[in-house]
């Protein structure tokens, strides 16, 4: 059973630019993933409005009955979130690592258009490797 179910990257306006499935029970179609991504974008924004104290940056961890959702927002507003088994550790590390890969393989790619879906083979490859269970454990640096 997979520890990590799926990984999403959404741009600053809520559009899904990357989605990778790592073993969910039912593969969702593209439309559903797009809807989920933009829904998460809005939920993230609303959670900041409802904060009882100032300085809220939105949801970092959502604990559902059957999964955990860890979210990392970069300074430019790109959101990375991973859906994993409840109680999986080191997910912040993994998200920061994916962010690092994103800056290296996507943003530095001269053929990549900002805010558009990511189609970079090397990024795909490295993310898949990073998501492997043993790598997650090693990332505790």
């Amino acid at each position, binding site marked *: 059973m997979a520890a990590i*179910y*799926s990984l999403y990257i959404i741009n600053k306006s809520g559009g899904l630019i990357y989605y990778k499935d790592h*073993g*969910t*029970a*039912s593969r*969702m179609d593209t439309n*559903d993933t797009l*809807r*989920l991504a933009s*829904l*998460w974008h*809005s*939920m993230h924004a*609303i*959670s*900041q*409005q*409802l*904060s*009882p*104290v*100032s*300085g*809220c*940056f*939105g*949801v*970092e*961890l*959502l*604990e*559902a*009955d*059957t*999964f955990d*959702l860890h979210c990392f927002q970069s300074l430019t507003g790109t959101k990375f979130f991973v*859906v994993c088994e409840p109680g999986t550790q080191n997910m912040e590390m993994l998200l920061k690592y994916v962010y690092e890969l994103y800056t290296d393989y996507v943003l530095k790619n001269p053929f990549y258009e900002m805010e558009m879906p990511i189609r970079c083979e090397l990024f795909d490859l490295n993310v898949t490797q990073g998501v492997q269970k043993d790598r997650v454990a090693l990332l505790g640096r």
Partner: protein
Amino acid sequence: MQFFGTTEINPSPPAVTAAGNNAHMMYIFNRNGVCLLYREWNRSLHTLSAQQDQKLMFGLLFSLKSLTAKMDPTSADKVNLGVPQLPGQGCSFHSFRTNTYKLSFMETPSGIKLILVTHPRTGDLRESLKYIYNLYVEYVVKNPLYTPGTPIKYELFNTTLDQYVRGLG
């Protein structure tokens, strides 16, 4: 999802780890989205009017529930996003955390939603919410003067709730 069939009617309050004033606010909604109770203990930031704030909170919970029901990676048969589901159907959630607060959520079989907003470092509050639900049953539902679906205005319930919440770790 399993509702608390095994819980006795009057469980003793869950053990409190460390006394402190960690709770920010509490909401109780019924299944129609009417806010039955809103209490706040220390809330420094008010961005919206009370009514707008409650509506936004209910909307957030409703949408987050449809999100988790659709995203559920362990089940193969799921309804479309946004289709209303009965309490207990589909994958729900019990809490989320931001850098400034933690929101714990419980929905009862009758559709009552209990929301407790606390300090982000507080632990699992599912048992505490069950206890608060029991307070609600004992002090509000069993009150013969209470009309279901109306805001709760009972001194005894409020003081008991305040006292319990103040002791949360």
